[in-house]
């Protein structure tokens, strides 16, 4: 993972894709969001979604899963080059999360991330705060999901 200083505003990265099977959709929904259109094909067809639809929280969790996997790949590459690996901190939240179109069973969603803002933390000078827009697009090129993520990213030099 990159240090705060190495991150450029506007930088964009494709960080993975995921195909939502009906089994995945129903398993997540039965735990966290058991509304009929997330659990049953016919109920999904009769809903505004027009088919068995993944819970929006499932789409968001899969986005996180792919972000973490991509971060680990980047960290391994940096370590292989002999570089110090930055360990990112937690997130204080997010804004503007949009479930734009339904994610239906069988859909493959590809995710990208674009850096929008960065600033140093006043309270924690060893950290920077990054905002990035994460976007999911289906196999037909339709944007289905986006949100503005915030994360604490370590600075390369302590407080200077």
């Amino acid at each position, binding site marked *: 993972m990159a240090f705060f200083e190495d991150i450029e505003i506007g930088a964009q990265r494709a960080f993975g894709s995921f195909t939502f099977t009906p089994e995945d959709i129903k398993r997540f929904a039965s735990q966290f969001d058991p509304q009929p259109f997330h659990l049953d094909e016919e109920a999904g067809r009769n*809903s505004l979604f027009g088919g068995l639809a993944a819970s929006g*929280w499932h789409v968001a969790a899969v986005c996180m899963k792919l972000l973490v996997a991509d971060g680990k790949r980047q960290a391994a590459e940096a370590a292989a080059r002999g570089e110090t690996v930055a360990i990112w*901190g*937690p997130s204080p939240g997010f804004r503007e999360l949009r*479930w734009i179109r339904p994610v239906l069973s069988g859909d493959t969603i590809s995710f990208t991330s674009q850096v929008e803002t960065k600033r140093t933390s006043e309270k924690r000078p060893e950290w920077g705060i990054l905002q990035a827009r994460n976007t999911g697009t289906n196999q037909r090129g339709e944007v289905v999901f986006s949100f503005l993520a915030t994360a604490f990213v370590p600075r390369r030099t302590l407080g200077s």
Partner: protein
Amino acid sequence: MTTLTFEDFRPGRFGTFGPRHVSREEILAFAAEFDPQPMHLDEAAAQKSMLRGLSGSGWHLGSLMMRMLFDGFIGRTASLGSPGVNEMRWLAPLRPGDDLTLDVDVVEARVSKSRPETGIVTFKGTVRNARGEVLCEMESPIIVGRRDGASS
């Protein structure tokens, strides 16, 4: 049980739901599948992290809030889904063994212009642990069907 419709949502406190116990096993299982960062999986790494101890993924907390919303009222509401989340603030870490309560306040309720047989209810959800600390706050709209015949 009667189904709640748009007309049942008025600005102000709607209800308090829970408690929902969250086990260490659940936290580790969610993190292993969706957010396998050391601060969510490994006790020693978590102690060294900003959150100082094992914590659940924020997305797990969001998903748990969704389940509490479902059990609290969405499961008996003419809910047609949600277009998104305006803002989520993760304010304190979710810890193993936490007992969560959820306060729901209706911020705004208005009839949809594009689909007048439905309304848009924007609510604020606040999740607290047993000590009363706020773990997260979320503002989100949901689309709710109006009572039969209401379309103007």
